[in-house]
C-alpha cells in the first residue's frame, strides 16, 4: 500500500480524496496555486506545496512540476481527481516513468478513449451500439461536413474529438447554420483542448443521459456499479444527477450495464471509469463516450451502493484486486446530487466571482455536502465555478427529492450569485417529480429561479436592520469560520447605538 499520495487537484474533489486517504492511513499531499493559498483543500491535506502562478496552465496543469513535487516529498502515487490532468495520457505515462503510480487507467486506455473518434470505433467493433455519425477525414473542409451532415440527416451535433464538458459542441438544425457552427466548434475545441478536430453525430431529440460506473483491476476483474441518470444539463454540463435511473426496467438496466462491462473488457479497463450512453424515447441506447476518471457525480453511486469509490481506486492502483465482486454490489434506495455553481441562472448561467461572505451548508441524516469552499473563500475567474455538491439519499425517489429541496432551502451562500434556488426550482418541477427528464429539460420547460417574485416584508425588515450596521471589515480580516464580520454577534450594539 502507498504511504503518501499527492492529489493533483483543488476544490471539493481534493478535499474528498484527502478524506479517504486519511482513513486508509495514507498521507495526503496537496498542491496549491497562489490564489488557492488559503483554500479549503490545502487544510484538508497532511502536507501541501505551492505551485507558482495563478492560471490553471501555470499550476494544476503543470504535470512536470507536480511530478517534481511528488518525488521531492516522497509520494508513491498521484491521484488526479477529475478535470486538469486526469485524462492526460502523457501525464499518466510520465508518472510511471518517474516511478510514481498514476491512480487511474493505463496511458494507452486514456489515450484511446480520450480520442472520441477512436473510442466510438473501438466500442462499435466490440458490439456496443453507437450513435450514427461521421468521423472520417476530420480535417475536411466545410463542404465535406455539409455533405456528410446531409447524409446523416438534420439535426446533427458537432463534437470535439478531444472534447468533454460541452466545449466545442454545437447543435446544427439546418444546413444554413452549419458553417458558422463548425467554425465556432473548431475554435472552441482548439482553445480548450489544443486540438481543433471535430466530428458529426446524429442528434437524438429528447434523449436521457444514462451512464454506467465501471471498475476494473489489474487481475482481469471488471464490474459495474449500476447506472446514473444525468439528464439535467445546462450548456451541456450536468447539474443534477441521480441513481437509479427512474423508470428503467430491470431488463434494460441489465442490458445497459452489460454493454458497459463489455466495453470495459474490450479495452482492458483498470480502475474507475464511466461509460456514457444516450437513451432514446424508445428505450434504445447508444454509446457516447468513456470517461477515464472518477466522475464529479460519483457520490450518487457511493450512496446507493454504500461503497467508497476513492478507496477502491487507491487499492486497485496499488495492485490489489477489487474489494468487491459483482454479486456484492446492490442498489439501495435513491440518491440525488445537485452541483452548486457560482453562476447566475437568470443571466444565461454566467459565472459569478467574488468572496464568499457567508457560508452555511445544510447537514443532517442522509445529507452529504462535498464542499471546496468556506466562508472567506475567493471564487476567482481562474477555475471552474463549481463550489460544492449536495448529495442526498432517500429510501424512495420522492423522499430523496424532498430531502434535497429542504437541504437547498437551508443552504446559505452570500457574496457570489449561485444556482441554489434554480436547482430547487428544477427539483420542484412536476415533470422532474414524474421522472420525465431528458437533456433538453431546462430549455423545454423554461425553468427559472424565483428572481421575479416580490420581496416579502420580512426581507425588507432584515435588510433595513443590516443596512444600519457598520460595514464589514476589510476582506483580509475575514477567515473561514471566523464570525468577526458578523453584525448579529452583538445584537445589543445597535440597540445601544
Amino acid at each position, binding site marked *: 500500500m502507498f504511504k503518501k499520495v499527492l492529489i493533483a487537484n483543488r476544490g471539493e474533489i481534493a478535499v474528498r480524496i484527502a478524506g479517504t486517504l486519511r482513513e486508509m492511513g495514507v498521507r495526503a499531499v496537496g498542491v496549491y496555486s497562489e490564489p488557492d493559498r488559503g483554500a479549503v483543500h490545502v487544510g484538508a491535506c497532511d502536507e501541501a506545496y505551492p505551485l507558482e502562478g495563478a492560471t490553471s496552465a501555470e499550476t494544476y496543469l503543470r504535470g512536470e512540476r507536480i511530478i517534481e513535487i511528488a518525488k521531492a516529498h516522497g509520494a508513491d502515487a498521484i491521484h488526479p481527481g477529475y478535470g486538469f490532468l486526469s485524462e492526460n495520457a502523457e501525464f499518466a505515462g510520465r508518472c510511471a516513468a518517474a516511478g510514481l503510480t498514476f491512480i487511474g487507467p493505463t496511458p494507452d486506455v486514456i489515450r484511446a478513449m480520450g480520442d472520441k473518434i477512436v473510442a466510438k470505433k473501438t466500442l462499435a467493433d466490440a458490439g456496443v451500439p453507437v450513435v450514427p455519425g461521421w468521423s472520417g477525414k476530420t480535417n475536411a473542409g466545410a463542404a465535406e461536413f455539409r455533405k456528410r451532415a446531409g447524409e446523416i440527416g438534420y439535426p446533427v451535433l458537432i463534437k470535439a474529438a478531444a472534447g468533454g464538458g460541452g466545449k466545442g459542441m454545437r447543435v446544427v438544425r439546418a444546413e444554413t447554420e452549419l458553417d458558422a457552427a463548425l467554425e465556432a466548434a473548431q*475554435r472552441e475545441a482548439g482553445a480548450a483542448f489544443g486540438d481543433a478536430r471535430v466530428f458529426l453525430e446524429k442528434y437524438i431529440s429528447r434523449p436521457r443521459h444514462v451512464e454506467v460506473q465501471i471498475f476494473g483491476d489489474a487481475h482481469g476483474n471488471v464490474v459495474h456499479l449500476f447506472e446514473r441518470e444525468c439528464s439535467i444539463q445546462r450548456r451541456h454540463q450536468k447539474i443534477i444527477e441521480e441513481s437509479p435511473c427512474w423508470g428503467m426496467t430491470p431488463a434494460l438496466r441489465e442490458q445497459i450495464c452489460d454493454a458497459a462491462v463489455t466495453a470495459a473488457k474490450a479495452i482492458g479497463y483498470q480502475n474507475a471509469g464511466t461509460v456514457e450512453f444516450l437513451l432514446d424515447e424508445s428505450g434504445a441506447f447508444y454509446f457516447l463516450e468513456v470517461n477515464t476518471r472518477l466522475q464529479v457525480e460519483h457520490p450518487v453511486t457511493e450512496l446507493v451502493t454504500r461503497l467508497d469509490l476513492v478507496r477502491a481506486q487507491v487499492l486497485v492502483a496499488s495492485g490489489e484486486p477489487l474489494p468487491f465482486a459483482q454479486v456484492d454490489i446492490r442498489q439501495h434506495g435513491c440518491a440525488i446530487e445537485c452541483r452548486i455553481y457560482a453562476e447566475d441562472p437568470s443571466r444565461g448561467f*454566467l459565472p459569478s466571482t467574488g468572496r464568499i461572505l457567508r457560508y452555511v451548508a445544510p447537514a443532517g441524516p442522509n445529507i452529504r455536502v462535498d464542499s471546496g469552499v468556506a466562508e472567506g473563500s475567493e471564487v476567482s475567474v481562474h477555475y471552474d465555478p463549481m463550489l460544492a455538491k449536495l448529495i442526498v439519499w432517500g429510501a424512495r425517489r420522492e423522499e430523496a427529492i424532498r430531502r434535497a429541496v429542504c437541504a437547498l432551502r437551508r443552504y446559505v451562500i452570500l457574496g457570489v450569485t449561485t444556482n441554489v434556488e434554480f436547482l430547487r426550482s428544477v427539483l420542484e418541477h412536476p415533470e422532474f417529480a414524474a421522472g420525465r427528464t431528458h437533456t433538453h429539460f431546462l430549455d423545454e420547460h423554461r425553468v427559472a429561479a424565483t428572481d421575479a417574485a416580490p420581496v416579502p416584508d420580512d426581507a425588507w425588515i432584515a435588510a433595513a436592520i443590516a443596512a444600519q450596521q457598520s*460595514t464589514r471589515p476589510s476582506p483580509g480580516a475575514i477567515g473561514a469560520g471566523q464570525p468577526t464580520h458578523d453584525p448579529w454577534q452583538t445584537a445589543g450594539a445597535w440597540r445601544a447605538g
Partner: protein
Amino acid sequence: MAKVLLQAEGHHEPTVVTVVRGDDDGVMEVSVGATRHECRAESDENGGGRLLVKGRVVPFHAVRDGDHVLLWLGGRTYAFDIVRPGGRRAGGVGGEAAFVPHLSAPMPGTILKVQIGAGDRFEPHQPLVVIESMKMEMTLSAPHPGQVREIRCKVGELVDAGAVLMTFDESKGEGDDAA
C-alpha cells in the same frame, strides 16, 4: 427613528423602510412602505440572525458590504442597494429596458470575436461580442436597439469585469436625445 431607502435588485422603485427602536427589550416598529410591523431582531447561535414577528421565527443571514446588503431569508437570497438621500442609482427608468450607452464586460475574460462595427445599427438580442471566461464562450447581446459609436476592445484582448467594450448611441428617430 431611522429611515432607510432600499432598492432590491431587479426592482425599479426603492422602498422606504423606517425603523423605530422601542424599549429596552429590543422591540421595534418597522414600516415597510405603508405597512407597519412590530418585531425583534436577535442573533442566533450559528452566527445568523433571527426576526421575531408576532411569534413567527424568521431566520436570516445578512452581510452589509459597502452600499449593498446581501440577505438570505426563507431559502432565497436578495441583494439590496442602500440608496443615499439625494443619491441616484442607475437603471430605474420606467418599465421598458432602459437605454445604456455602452456594453461592458460582465466578468474578466478574453475577447474572441467582435461581431459588429462602429456606426452599425443593432436590434435587441443581437450578438455583439463573444468573450471567453472560465473556459466557456459567452455571447454578449444587445440589451436594446441602438447604433455603435465606438468599439473599445479588440480580439485577443484580456479585459477586466466592467470594462467598456463599446459605446452606443440611441437609434435615430427614437426621440429625446439625452446628451
